[in-house]
């Protein structure tokens, strides 16, 4: 059986950054397995700008951001196999994959990094009624059609979901000549970044209708229109508000799901809140030697944060493969407190930190004038002011040496409380 020190599953931004970090930390035989025909992942179709402000201090487009990591991978001589599908992984770190050149590949890995990313929720996942005509797409599929393949999915467009991909596609379809009639959001607030509401909707006069959803798709061969409705506080459509909107296309931007079929089949424990594996401070899952990073762990808003997290995973995997891992001497559980949905990592060993680590978390509702608190066994060890927070924007606390020294006890809790 072929042996590799680190095998990375997925060649998107997470996999590329993890591969570079693994190589830089002493592993010479890193292998990336990618199912698409090129590396770069979803960045290849994200042609808009806004990537790289944290990592490179400049605003890059998706392909430009990917190209920087692709170049590093090439310079370091890291091997990658494209058009290669991973079929399974095992807890003793055997990776089985297939492509049309090598046939079946069976590789014993010293460490595995899971970097499979996420996929979009589709019409079935949100249960929209009506007929099943052509013209209903997820926003990411439409993005691939327009930006890579050069096809326009439609001319009169309604977008359901105000996550970033929905907002970005509202602008993109408008620039390419379509009429985007409206963006609907079932929640009373947008799930996207504020800058995208300004640049993608307000700039083009596209209305955003909060607390609205699509209740019915109409049309036989092709979408002819959708019935929209306002929803009450329990997100139930209000019958008196039903309204027919003629259109030929419905784009769905209704959330992303970490793609963990491989992880689940290998019995890697998954956090039901994030739908991604539980990880420690080095991004190791609860299975020895199997690491995870990027959107397969939890869905990020910014690729820069994926890169930062993936470097930790790559370094952790390299140390594990080289027998240098010292983590786990004394571990604290990390739990979400009031107003916080989840925290990554879910356990932490303060003695194993490099101080590049962060507590990453999302709040559960829209909050203003809050105080963020980090508590150890009930005692506040760190706090900071949070003027405003929304579930659409990931929050973080850098784990400095100063903070790490205070992590003595059993349980770390991260929560909000109203500022005085």
């Amino acid at each position: 059986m072929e042996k590799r020190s680190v095998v990375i599953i997925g060649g998107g931004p997470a996999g590329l950054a993890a591969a570079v970090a693994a190589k830089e930390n002493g592993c010479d035989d890193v292998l990336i397995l990618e199912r698409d025909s090129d590396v770069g992942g979803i960045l290849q179709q994200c042609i808009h700008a806004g990537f790289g402000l944290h990592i490179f201090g400049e605003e890059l487009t998706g392909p430009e951001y990917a190209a920087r990591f692709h170049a590093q991978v090439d310079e370091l001589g890291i091997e990658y196999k494209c058009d290669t599908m991973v079929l399974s992984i095992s807890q003793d770190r055997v990776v089985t994959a297939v492509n049309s050149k090598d046939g079946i590949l069976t590789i014993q890995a010293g460490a595995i990094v899971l970097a499979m990313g996420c996929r979009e929720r589709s019409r079935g996942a949100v249960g929209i009624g009506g007929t099943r005509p052509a013209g209903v797409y997820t926003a990411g599929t439409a993005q691939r059609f327009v930006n890579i393949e050069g096809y326009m999915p439609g001319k009169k467009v309604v977008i359901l979901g105000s996550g970033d991909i929905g907002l970005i596609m509202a602008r993109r379809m408008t620039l390419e000549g379509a009429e985007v009639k409206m963006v609907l959001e079932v929640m009373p607030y947008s799930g996207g970044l504020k800058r995208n509401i300004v640049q993608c909707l307000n700039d083009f006069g596209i209305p955003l209708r909060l607390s609205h959803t699509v209740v019915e798709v109409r049309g036989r061969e092709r979408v002819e229109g959708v019935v929209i409705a306002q929803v009450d506080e329990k997100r139930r459509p209000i019958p008196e508000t039903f309204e027919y909107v003629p259109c030929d296309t419905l784009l769905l931007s209704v959330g992303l799901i970490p793609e963990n079929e491989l992880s689940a089949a290998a019995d890697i424990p998954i956090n039901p809140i994030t739908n991604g594996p539980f990880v420690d401070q080095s991004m190791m899952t609860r299975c020895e030697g199997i690491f995870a990073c990027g959107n397969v762990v939890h869905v990020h808003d910014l690729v820069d944060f994926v890169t930062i997290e993936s470097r930790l995973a790559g370094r952790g995997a390299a140390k594990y493969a080289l027998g240098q891992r010292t983590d786990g001497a004394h571990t604290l559980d990390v739990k979400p407190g009031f107003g916080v949905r989840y925290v990554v990592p879910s356990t932490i060993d303060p003695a194993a930190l490099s101080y590049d680590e962060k507590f990453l978390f999302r709040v559960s509702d829209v909050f203003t004038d809050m105080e963020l608190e980090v508590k150890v066994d009930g005692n506040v060890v760190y706090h900071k002011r949070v003027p405003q927070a929304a579930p659409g924007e990931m929050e973080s606390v850098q784990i400095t040496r100063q903070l790490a020294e205070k992590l003595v006890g059993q349980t770390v809790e991260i929560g909000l409380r109203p500022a005085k």
Partner: protein
Amino acid sequence: METKNLTCVVCPRGCALTVTVEDGKILSVTGNTCKRGAAYAEAELLRPERMLTSTVTVEDRRRMLAVRTRSAIPKDKIFDAMRVLYGTRVSAPVQIGDVIVADVCGTSVDVIASESLA
């Protein structure tokens, strides 16, 4: 004196800016967490501009080429620039950073390739 509320788009933080204006002159900007916010507020009220990203057709290829303006262009030139890009065709190979359209619509800003095609 007039007060305007803007959301800064310079970075993903999205600061809520409050700008006071009198006779087309900016008196103060508050709510920004860095100095780029103040510059954005001034530009947004006096001469709003945006970076444009789009694609152009590649001859003999079944895929598009991603392009962008090298820097921001005036907001009111966006659709003029798009009309130029609709009709632009390039031939591979293309290197990232190659000029695809020089001085687009008299903005003195070039449209450049944002990816390489072998």
